[in-house]
């Protein structure tokens, strides 16, 4: 209701007679590159594009719920500003492109909740570096996207602001935790989005919603201004309609940031430049632990066809093994929850966030946290606190860190023999809303193919590779060597050129 009223009031203020009829242009389905070319050739203005997408948001949000906060006034003002830039001859690839970002990114002056009640009224005093880089290149912010609370979840059912639904089948989850970021791209509610990935939170929703999602190497993109979940695993990445757009966003956000001491100071390649080099002679590894018996038959079939496509394109396949794969989920849920329990100690009701009425300080901490956090966040804080508590520290936390070393060594060894790995993203297509919410362990196990990449710290991408018999998208995962995003982007681009999966649209 509030969103509808805002858009209508803005549209009334604007002189609509200056806006051309753009109904034949299908703005909402455009890629960054397509919209850029329309903006540059003046076939379309950023204001026209932004209005079309805001109207789309108004129309489909009741069914999808991708957004926590829509920012129409700011979006229209930025679009006008972008049009002035374009008129004066300054039109870089992102100028005037309407984007949306996960509500985990701090945005100065714009409410940022991280999907939690505890931050319901939090207005950040500064912005995330990754968002600033997009904004400085002229991108238009449409709003802040729904997510599992503090990025803890695989289905978006753990948001305090309602469940995001999968645009391909609204009875299914969009994946998580960047579920809003994936659903918005799939439902035509943003040209592209940013998400974050701690254990698969970009790749798994990208796979379930039929878009492209890249988790860069740890350290490649600044985490400054990204609300922390598990600091040794969190990474920022693009979610887009095709691989070229994914490269374009990575070109904009990658690089060292003095404000993030874990960002890596090494040269950033031009990711868009090497896309078209093809995959002839590329050595692709197939880890046997990822092609297990329990794999959904539609996922299995999709992988078999993808392998065939790559073979036709001239890639070579090598059977490999990552022997510690089966230990990754257990390792992750000890390390991530331990880091989370420490990171979330800052929510104490003192400086920002929800404060409960209380008679003394301890009661204020305890009540504020207990009222502000949802069940999954409490569960993970409890697990992490347990794993770090005296008597269990060595048996759980240190043990998991040692197994993490073994998992990393698996990756290092395999990358002596192959350039990339090809695997499924998730064992099944999107599951039904409510199906796994009461069984946390089953929910955690749905991330089995994405978690090892975060533990190893390397890069991986999900891209559309097929559909289930029920019409749900299925993604394939390409895993690259650390800081070799170029090769997975190139391999993804070659696949996309040879297939048409990425061109299919959800009918919502």
């Amino acid at each position, binding site marked *: 209701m509030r969103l509808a009223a805002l858009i209508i009031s803005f549209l009334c203020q604007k002189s609509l007679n200056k806006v051309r009829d753009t109904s034949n242009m299908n703005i909402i389905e455009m890629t960054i590159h397509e919209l850029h070319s329309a903006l540059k050739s003046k076939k379309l203005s950023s204001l026209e594009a932004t209005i079309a997408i805001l109207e789309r948001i108004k129309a489909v949000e009741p069914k999808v719920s991708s957004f926590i906060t829509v920012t129409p006034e700011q979006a229209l003002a930025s679009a006008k500003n972008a049009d002035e830039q374009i008129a004066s001859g300054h039109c870089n690839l992102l100028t005037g492109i309407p984007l949306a970002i996960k509500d985990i990114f701090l945005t100065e002056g714009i409410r940022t909740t991280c999907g939690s009640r505890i931050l319901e009224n939090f207005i950040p005093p500064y912005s995330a570096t990754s968002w600033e880089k997009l904004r400085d290149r002229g991108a238009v912010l449409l709003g802040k996207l729904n997510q599992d609370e503090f990025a803890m979840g695989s289905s978006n059912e753990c948001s305090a602001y309602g469940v995001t639904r999968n645009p391909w089948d609204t009875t299914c989850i969009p994946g998580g935790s960047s579920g809003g970021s994936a659903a918005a791209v799939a439902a035509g509610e943003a040209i592209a989005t940013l998400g974050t990935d701690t254990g698969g939170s970009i790749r798994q929703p990208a796979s379930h919603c039929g878009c492209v999602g890249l988790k860069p190497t740890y350290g490649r993109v600044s985490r400054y201004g990204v609300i922390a979940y598990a600091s040794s695993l969190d990474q920022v990445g693009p979610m887009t309609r095709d691989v070229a757009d994914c490269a374009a966003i990575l070109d904009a956000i990658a690089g060292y940031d003095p404000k993030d001491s874990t960002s890596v100071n090494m040269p950033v390649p031009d990711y868009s430049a090497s896309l078209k080099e093809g995959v002839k002679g590329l050595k692709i590894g197939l880890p046997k632990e990822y092609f297990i018996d329990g794999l959904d038959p539609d996922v299995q079939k999709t992988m078999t066809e993808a392998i065939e496509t790559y073979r036709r394109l001239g890639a070579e396949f090598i059977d490999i093994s990552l022997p510690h794969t*089966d*230990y990754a989920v*257990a390792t992750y849920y000890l390390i991530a929850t331990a880091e989370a329990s420490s990171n979330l100690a800052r929510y104490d009701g003192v400086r*920002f966030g929800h404060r409960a009425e209380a008679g003394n300080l301890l009661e204020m901490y305890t009540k504020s946290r207990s009222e502000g956090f949802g069940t999954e966040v409490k569960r993970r804080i409890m697990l992490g606190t347990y794993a770090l508590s005296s008597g269990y520290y060595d048996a759980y936390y240190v043990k*998991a860190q040692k197994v993490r070393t073994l998992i*990393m060594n698996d990756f290092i060894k395999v990358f002596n023999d192959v350039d990339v790995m090809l695997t499924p993203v998730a064992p099944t297509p999107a599951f039904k809303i409510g199906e796994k919410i009461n069984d946390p362990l089953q929910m955690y196990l749905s991330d089995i193919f994405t978690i090892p990449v975060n533990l190893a710290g390397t890069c991986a991408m999900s891209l559309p590779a097929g559909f289930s018999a029920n019409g749900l998208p299925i993604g394939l995962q390409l895993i690259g060597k*650390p800081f070799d995003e170029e090769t997975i982007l190139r391999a993804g681009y070659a696949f996309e050129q040879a297939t048409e999966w990425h061109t299919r649209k959800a009918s919502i």
Partner: protein
Amino acid sequence: MKISVVDVEQVARLARLELTFEEKELFATQMDAILDYVEKLKELNTEGIIPTSHAVPMENAFREDLVMPSIGLAKALANAPGRSDNFFSVPKVIE
């Protein structure tokens, strides 16, 4: 059962969380199942393995010790649930 309701209460105290009776029962059961699952890590011999806390090998990140602008009092206090002059206010700590 590795985890009892009493254990849950102890961990909740450490984590500054107050749980309802239903939450305590639920977490005891669920944490028990999860801890049972992570027991599988014990199958691996990790003797002599160096623990990994960070995936990318890095030196400590030093910077020049320079005076830089900060966000300032107004912005720093803007989200404060309670404030008094230029301070965050909290319930009385010392009697």
